[in-house]
């Protein structure tokens, strides 16, 4: 019976939300953002329509079906894996009396700054057939370890670099959750587990679902992990089409199929996101939720956090430090590294600002005016995130040079590319936060004469600011790692850390990229600390 705290309001909430149509400025703004984000899809349509026969032949192969299954399988496995890892971490760092919660919070969020290509490379050098671990085991007569290439390796790396995408929104949702619901359920005699299932889980569902979706879509579009770990996903095959066979049409046809996979994942998430009310149940201010004492469970909990943080962050950093010290002293070009770091900070900050602003109307529409039209806007604005970076970059090359030659290969164009690539990161987090703000408050503000925009700015956004900022941080961290868009779209001479790492690693061995990699981690850890370290 504990569900009564949620269910009866559901119908009321739905009626209320359906009752107020979206204002036209909101619709126009979100349509513009969605159209910009759908540019890559438009580009794919142009290319495929140019040579429909060749496009058809490129995908009409039995292999395509297997490719589809592999990519979808990897995306789903990463989505679920990341959620399974993030859920206990979120609860432990927000609602339990885990000793040193703030430090643990930062540590287990830090893997977010790890680019997948670095994580994958480190995995291979640590656990590969001839990796560091094998070196340690060599005296025991072990010459080669079993291969980690393929699904398992790719899955492992992708879960490690994406679980913070689920962790951050879940933490935010847990922190914002109204304890009144739990109290009511507890008052009616619900036990802990039942409480978790009937009250906490449904409240967390939108945050977890949005996070899991981001993790899954990331897995779909990521190139670093699947290429280094040799898992033939869509992205790897698309890159091979460009790089090895210069097959533009074939690559576009495959990417168009990838858009369909994305649509399937979106539909799955939309189903999981029940139309429920997620805001507070009663008037007045929310109290802080009570902290649950862990008791004896403290030790396993600490061990769990240490294990995750150790494997996902401390170990990679340790290896990078080791390589930096091992590479010949003076081999690192510090002035180049510094200027690259400056470029990275600039583009990541601009990308975070622009993307967060662009995401506001989309997130608002998603939170307040669900429906078919909204789903279309959300799908369009997600497509850039689900596509490999090379496709998005080439799409902007194609449209940019024709539609806005004056902006071509300027910072403005690069920032636009980042918005297209990363909008869902900001939109998902913002929407989850908006869902927990009762629309009643806006209505009250409107009742005393505020304009819709005024009410949003003075009431809703301040209440949802945690989610908005978390979204901005996610975009910052994604943008600072981005490579293909930077290589193809930046002004000539504009340098970033991933570009520098790429140059170092193509020229020689990974060791010479270790120092810039460390700087990249350090620069990205800064905003993360600001956001996660500050809170509660």
């Amino acid at each position, binding site marked *: 019976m504990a569900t009564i705290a949620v269910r009866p309001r559901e119908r009321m909430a739905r009626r209320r939300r359906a009752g107020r149509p979206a204002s036209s400025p909101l619709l126009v703004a979100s349509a513009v953002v969605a159209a910009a984000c759908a540019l890559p899809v438009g580009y794919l349509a142009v290319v495929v329509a140019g040579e429909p026969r060749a496009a058809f032949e490129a995908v009409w192969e039995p292999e395509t079906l297997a490719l589809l299954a592999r990519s979808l399988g990897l995306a789903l496995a990463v989505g679920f894996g990341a959620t399974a890892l993030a859920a206990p971490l979120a609860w432990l760092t927000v609602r339990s009396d885990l000793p040193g919660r703030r430090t643990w919070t930062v540590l287990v969020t830090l893997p977010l700054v790890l680019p997948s290509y670095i994580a994958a490379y480190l995995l291979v050098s640590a656990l590969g057939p001839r990796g560091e671990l094998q070196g340690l085991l060599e005296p025991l007569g072990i010459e080669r370890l079993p291969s980690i290439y393929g699904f398992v390796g790719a899955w492992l790396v992708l879960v490690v670099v994406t679980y913070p995408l689920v962790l951050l929104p879940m933490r935010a949702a847990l922190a914002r959750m109204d304890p009144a619901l739990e109290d009511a359920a507890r008052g009616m005699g619900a036990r802990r587990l039942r409480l978790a299932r009937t009250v906490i889980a449904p409240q967390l569902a939108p945050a977890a679902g949005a996070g899991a979706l981001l993790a899954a879509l990331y897995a779909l579009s990521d190139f670093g992990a699947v290429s280094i770990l040799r898992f033939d996903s869509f992205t790897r095959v698309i890159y091979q089409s*460009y790089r090895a066979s210069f097959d533009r049409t074939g690559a576009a046809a495959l990417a168009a199929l990838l858009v369909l996979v994305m649509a399937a994942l979106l539909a799955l998430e939309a189903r999981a996101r029940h139309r429920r009310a997620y805001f507070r149940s009663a008037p007045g201010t929310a109290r802080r939720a009570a902290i649950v004492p862990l008791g004896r469970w403290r030790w396993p909990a600490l061990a769990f956090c240490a294990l995750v943080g150790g494997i996902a962050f401390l170990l990679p950093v340790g290896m990078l430090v080791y390589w930096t010290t091992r590479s010949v002293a003076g081999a690192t070009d510090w002035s180049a590294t510094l200027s690259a770091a400056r470029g990275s900070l600039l583009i990541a900050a601009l990308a975070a600002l622009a993307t967060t602003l662009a995401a506001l109307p989309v997130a608002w529409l998603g939170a307040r005016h669900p429906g078919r039209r909204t789903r279309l806007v959300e799908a369009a604005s997600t497509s850039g995130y689900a596509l490999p970076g090379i496709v998005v970059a*080439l799409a902007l090359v194609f449209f940019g040079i024709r539609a806005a030659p004056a902006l071509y290969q300027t910072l403005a164009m690069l920032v636009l590319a980042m918005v297209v690539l990363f909008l869902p990161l900001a939109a998902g987090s913002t929407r989850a936060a908006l869902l927990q703000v009762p629309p009643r408050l806006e209505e009250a503000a409107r009742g005393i004469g505020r304009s819709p925009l005024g009410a949003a700015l003075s009431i809703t956004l301040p209440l949802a600011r945690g989610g908005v900022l978390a979204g901005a941080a996610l975009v910052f961290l994604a943008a600072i790692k981005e490579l293909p868009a930077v290589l193809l779209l930046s002004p000539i001479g504009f340098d970033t850390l991933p570009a520098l790492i790429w140059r170092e690693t193509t020229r020689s061995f990974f060791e010479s990229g270790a120092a810039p990699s460390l700087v990249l981690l350090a620069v990205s850890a800064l905003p993360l600390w*600001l956001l996660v370290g500050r809170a509660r």
Partner: protein
Amino acid sequence: MRLARSILPMVAAATIAVGLAACGGDDAGESAGAGGDKSTLTIYSGRDEAFVGPLVDAFEKESPDTEIKVRYGDSAELAATIREEGDRSPADVFFSQDAGALGALQAEGLLAKLPDATLGKVDKAYRSTAGDWVGTSGRVRVLAYDHRKLTASDLPASVFDLTKPEWKGKVGWAPTNASFQSFVTAMRKTEGEDKTRSWLEGMQANATKSYEKNGVIRDAIASGEIEVGLINHYYVLEAIKEGEADGETYPVKLHFFPGGDIGSLVNVAGVGILKSAKHGDLAQRFADFLLATPQQKYFADETSEYPLADAVPQDPSLPALGDIQQPDVDLADLADLKGTLALLQDAGVL
């Protein structure tokens, strides 16, 4: 106010970042149109900055009224970019790491015909048959071997001999590497699909070990893990140059397959000029510049690649290019890698 306070750090961070970039990076924000009276040559380079940078400096010194802008990237991705840009491309020159990317642009009709004077500097095996691009330096596929364990007489006469039982478990290759894949494409073109497939399957059955990169194969030979490996020739010379060992004490040596064997394919890095180039004359001068003696010497010294023009000698430890019989391959055909990838996957190599 709470909103202001929480957004503040973000805005502050952004401002600091923008400020930092603005005050330090005068090379960064420069957008198009700020030309001045210098003419600007724009190069898309698939070869890396550490290597191209000195060439650019030398060219600018030679023509003081010129400014050169270089976009660095992966050769194939830059070729794809030029294709999307079409005739509006800001690029004048494409300097590619391999012949395949140049062949792809040639197939799209985006490259201008080079004058005979330029083409004539290079043997016709190392340039486009249609005259759209020209090789600037060559790299040879070789069998690197451990000379502590093997003498020259132990080495196979053909790459096809590596499937024999005496080489079981002793060979290394890099199936994901672009140069290796070009070599397999060349094998398909000269020897046919069936023979290539049975070679791949034979190698696979012979417990050939896979590595990520050419350099890793070289190191595996040096460390005694394997005895021979299929790599590009310059990786061994690079190790000798960087390390303290000289050519005699370094454990890895090069074996060139004789008699036009496909195992010793010569591939090139090369240059092409875009049809849409806004500075065609300057681009032409740059192409000729790369083929002139000092730059050809630079290739030989810096990367141990084979100079292709002006009879500049190669690294003294290497056999002359004329002594390596180039198998009968049109390098532009090496762009056809789709079949190669399918074959590699079919044979279970990838």
